[in-house]
């Protein structure tokens, strides 16, 4: 098993004829992903890399049975693309696009509450279940199939850590990049709960960073709800404080959003917290050893 995407995934690529869309469609296909359709308004009827292109997601879904989509359209049109996928009944929507206005995303996530879909991102690397489906821009060569679930706010840091895992002979069930934007579709907790429910996932890795309090909330969730061991890593111990105007931000987060504060919260919740990417792989090996 895996979470979110697997052998049943019938993928649709929104923005398939754009530069990034085209490049990654090819790579996702090479990873064995079942890419059934592409959408670019006005280019319906064409074919791209053997994938039929449609004008609208609805049309593409009706004709190909697509059940997941990945979005590469430019920021001004990306929220609309997400709405389109949600309304067409996709179960997983993965938005790679970086730079979507925060207010657009608040509207999208509000709407998401009445949908049963999972939105990953935006501004994320996507989701990859090794040797099952690659709905991402992640470099597939660093992955290996296995039992560790990875969830991360950061793209390249995920690659770094997955790479360390694979080099140690530890494979992954699914890796999910949830994205680093202020407003994202799916938070740590939702992904962790999916890993918890996945019989194949024997250990979860959570990769966080400074800012917000998502890691603290996740720590509380892990403590109270999870049986699966969790290894965490937080980046940004030496990063300079972000400059934000006004006081509202500090009042809202209601606590420290530093890497120290986050690591402390993780440890207090009994989570193994690594201090650098290489240590993550060590702690995972340790956790897997204990649990087996």
């Amino acid at each position, binding site marked *: 098993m895996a979470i979110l995407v697997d052998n049943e995934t019938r993928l649709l690529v929104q923005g398939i004829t754009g530069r990034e869309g085209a490049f990654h469609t090819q790579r996702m296909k090479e990873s064995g992903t079942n890419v059934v359709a592409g959408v670019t308004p006005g280019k319906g009827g064409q074919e791209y890399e053997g994938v039929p292109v449609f004008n609208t997601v609805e049309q593409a879904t009706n004709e190909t049975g697509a059940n997941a989509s990945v979005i590469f359209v430019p920021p001004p049109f990306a929220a609309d693309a997400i709405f389109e996928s949600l309304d067409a009944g996709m179960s997983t929507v993965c938005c790679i696009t970086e730079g979507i206005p925060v207010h657009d995303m608040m509207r999208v996530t509000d709407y998401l509450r009445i949908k049963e879909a999972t939105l990953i991102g935006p501004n994320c690397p996507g989701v990859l279940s090794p040797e099952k489906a690659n709905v991402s821009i992640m470099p597939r060569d660093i992955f290996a199939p296995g039992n560790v679930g990875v969830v991360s706010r*950061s793209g390249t840091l995920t690659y*770094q850590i997955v790479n360390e895992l694979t080099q140690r002979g530890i494979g992954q069930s699914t890796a999910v990049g949830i994205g680093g934007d202020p407003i994202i579709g799916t938070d740590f907790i939702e992904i962790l709960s999916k890993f918890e429910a996945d019989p194949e996932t024997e250990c979860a890795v959570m990769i966080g960073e400074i800012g917000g309090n998502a890691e603290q909330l996740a720590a509380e969730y892990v403590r109270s709800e999870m049986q699966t061991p969790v290894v965490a890593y937080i980046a940004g111990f030496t990063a300079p404080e972000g400059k934000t105007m006004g006081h509202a931000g500090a009042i809202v987060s209601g606590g420290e959003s530093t890497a120290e504060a986050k690591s402390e919260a993780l440890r207090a919740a009994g989570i193994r917290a690594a201090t650098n990417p290489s240590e993550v792989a060590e702690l995972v090996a340790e956790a897997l050893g204990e649990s087996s």
Partner: protein
Amino acid sequence: MDLYEYQGKELLRHYGLETLPGVVAGTPEEARRAAETLGGTVAIKAQVLTGGRGKAGGIKVVSSPGEAEEAAGRILGMDIRGHTVRRVYVEGGAEIDREFYLSITVDRSAKQPLILFSTEGGVDIEEVAETKPEAIVRLHVDPLVGLLPYQVREIVFAAGLEGAAAKGVGRTLTHLYEAFKDLDASLVEINPLVVTKDGRVLTLDAKVTVDNSSLYRHQEIAALHDVEAADPQEQRALEVGLQYVKLDGNVGILGNGAGLVMSTLDVVAQAGGEPANFCDVGGGADAEQISTALDIVTSNEQVQSVLFNIFGGITRGDEVARGLLTAIERTGITLPIVVRLDGTNAEEGRRILAENTPENVVTEETMLDAARRAVELARDGGR
């Protein structure tokens, strides 16, 4: 993008918020003339994109044009938390009866706008939040539904307001939410929002931050960007779509993705080094951007070695390698550069580098090793 007080107020006035009359001045002479025009008591307020200007002496209340000129002379050129004061706002006076705190921001956890209101305005509101949290009313707005009349009433009643003040604060909140939404703001903060003795509700200070990602649809706000106030290197990086931050050490850091860059800083610190700066080339960086990034990072005189840490996703290893070679050729950089390349097209990138390795470039297999090597080289003095 942060806006100056006077810019924020200008925008908020369009949404019906009431402010005092004011004039921007760049010289003491301009401040004197502004004070003459406004008449009576005026405040001379430093315009800086940071808080705490009051404590730093950046605000003076004066009662004559001569005093205004003198105060402006003292405030202009002042350094407030690393920001040089280049303009002051000369603003008329008012007889204040009560002071409130009002802001709307984006609550990441709730994924909704959050209104904060407090009758304890005009003071250090973060302290109020810690010591007296019940003095701050919090109210989420459903972004699709918008601010509802009952929510405005909740704020007004919670504040114990009545009559004209209740109406005025309610109207201000309604207009402020419109502004927050229309302007794609990530923060609008009024501290203090005051009720004057004659019952008017005035926006006495305004902090407005507009979401950078939305600037494509707010050309008029994008045009307010203060190029002069920005660090020249940061500015240059921004113009080509890179993020650059200056720090204090001697290892220049180049990486892709905020997470990996932050982790690189941490690992450099763990290896006993100190980052001099960092530049995030982001996703999909091409040869041209890599070249500019290297140029910016090494332009910092403190940099003794460069750590080049790329794990390719959208960013492709071959382009990174080519960008690096181009940059070295163009700039004639001789500083030691430690390269660590992994991910998409990394193999091809490594091949390109291996075929053309300049003398000052060394490659390492792992991030930890690369960090240690860069710290070592910096310690030896690269320049």
